[in-house]
């Protein structure tokens, strides 16, 4: 544990405060805008009569698609997260436990790594053409598929760290006790990597929830997700600053809730193997 004393302590707290301010300030600023009428926003005033108009307009007004966008986002994020967890965990288990030849596992893991390093934007074009060919443009299915592809590498790497951490002996003991391999996986390994599943799940969900570039090009008016919807508040002739701010604040709620509950596991997941 690093202990700071005297002036360095004050300096340390100063740095921390600055960091927190840099992260929180834009968020607070957007929060403030969401409580102002359009005119107050344009005047840039700091003192203003607060209003819930923007929220009401975004959530309940007849012309707003926002509730529909939220439903779309929930569907895409939940389905893609569930699929990513199932596929990723099984893949990670296989890579960690089966004695694959080094070439196979190295190629596979190398590919996932490279894939993770490519900006998703480069894939958007090909994906658009692909999905147009098979008639899936502007569907949630297409978006779910791309989100699975995007978030699978991260999940595999994370789950591999967790699974490798479970001693092989445990599964072997279970197999001697009477389990088939699949039972040993289900009854012994899976319960022990639950923290990993939570961590990977939270991350995959939040990433999918926030994903913008792919969603923008693959969704239409009826299938737009929340980030796309927020961007659409800025239109050619008018920017609806208030509504945009309100929608932004609303859109952070699921991620905040998930992070709040999953934070412990996420931190553990990201640092697993790093500190022992």
């Amino acid at each position: 544990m690093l202990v700071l004393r005297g002036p360095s302590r004050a300096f340390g707290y100063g740095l921390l405060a600055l960091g927190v301010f840099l992260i929180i300030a834009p968020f607070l600023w957007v929060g403030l805008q969401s409580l102002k009428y359009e005119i107050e926003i344009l005047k840039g005033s700091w003192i203003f009569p607060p209003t819930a108009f923007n929220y009401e307009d975004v959530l309940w007004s007849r012309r707003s698609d926002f509730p529909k966008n939220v439903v779309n986002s929930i569907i895409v994020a939940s389905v893609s997260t569930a699929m990513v967890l199932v596929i990723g965990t099984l893949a990670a288990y296989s890579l960690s436990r089966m004695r694959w030849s080094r070439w196979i596992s190295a190629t596979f893991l190398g590919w996932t790594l490279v894939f993770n390093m490519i900006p998703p934007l480069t894939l958007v074009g090909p994906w658009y053409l692909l999905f147009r060919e098979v008639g899936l443009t502007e569907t949630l299915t297409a978006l779910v598929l791309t989100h699975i592809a995007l978030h699978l590498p991260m999940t595999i790497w994370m789950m591999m760290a967790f699974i490798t951490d479970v001693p092989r002996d445990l599964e072997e003991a279970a197999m001697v006790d009477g389990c088939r391999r699949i039972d040993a996986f289900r009854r012994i390994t899976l319960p022990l990597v639950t923290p990993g599943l939570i961590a990977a799940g939270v991350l995959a969900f939040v990433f999918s929830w926030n994903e913008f570039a792919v969603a923008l090009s693959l969704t239409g008016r009826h299938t737009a997700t929340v980030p796309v919807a927020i961007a659409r508040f800025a239109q050619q002739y008018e920017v609806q600053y208030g509504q945009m701010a309100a929608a932004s604040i609303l859109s952070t709620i699921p991620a905040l809730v998930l992070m709040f509950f999953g934070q412990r596991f996420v931190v553990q997941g990201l640092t697993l193997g790093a500190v022992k």
Partner: protein
Amino acid sequence: MAEVRIDSVEKRFGHLQVIHGIDLTIADGEFVVLVGPSGCGKSTLLRMIAGLEEISAGTISIGGRVVNDLEPRERDIAMVFQSYALYPHMNVERNMGFSMALRKQPKAAINEAVGKAAGALELEPYLARLPRELSGGQRQRVAMGRAIVRRPEVFLFDEPLSNLDAQLRVQMRTEVRKLHQRLGATSIYVTHDQVEAMTMADRIVVLEQGRIAQAGSPLELYDRPASRFVAEFIGSPAINILPGAVARGAVSIRLPAGAVEAPLAADLGSAEVDVGIRPEHLRRVRDGGIEGVVQVIEHLGAETYVFLDVGLGRDLCWRMPGRPDVAVGETVSLGFDPGNLNLFVSGSGERLGSPRAAA
């Protein structure tokens, strides 16, 4: 209960061969200890019997049934792991009853079996605890209890005591042995600790680089080791090895201070040999024995180990009963009964032939 037969079993990891054609039959109810230095293949052999490693060549059968292609769960075995491998998310009771629960046995039967095993192992107060809330010794007993509840044909132990402290290890050694006497199940026990092997085994199998160096009762191995390797591996403190030669019915031990001659009961021809003398077979003589300067004296109470420099670079160990009447720096002459010598051909390390057997 069952006999375990191992026929010309081999194991290769890629190009690396770790088990070179092992033949071994373990009788029904026998307690066999596989012992050897690390890397000798003893754990691999055990894991092949358990079905956790594939068999590259040969057959293994349990109770007359070839098990090569059977899953571990179909072999009717129980295994105690070095790490204990207790399921961390299950309490002691569920850990012990897991195998029965998998076979969908009635709850009452599981409770009875677990209760009985827990009683025998003094685990009753801990049934509701998780493994992480137990001490090392308790975990070890839970691992044993889990094996007992399984009621297998064959018990397999993979260095089960090596994570315990010395005192507990001695205590658990007796426990394991008692357990075997009570259940009478065929048991195969792997250890690198030759004291464990000597004290627990009906029969010891010494492995050396994937081959059986010698198999036999503990005393057979101790008294008539088949090779220098076995002689040096079995016995603590280790056997003394001195250079020498055999010719015309006598052995001559070559020491820097001069040769020490002793007659043999039989003419074994002539050969360069390594002469093995157990530390307890040395006794003090007035002169004409092996001369050495006392370097270190280790008091064990009932007996004493005296280490002497005889000019060979490694010390000669002399094990004497009671308290020593020598002091560090003193020169002592040690004699021996030629009948107690173990002679190994230099180089190959094979046993030359026992003077005692010939006598």
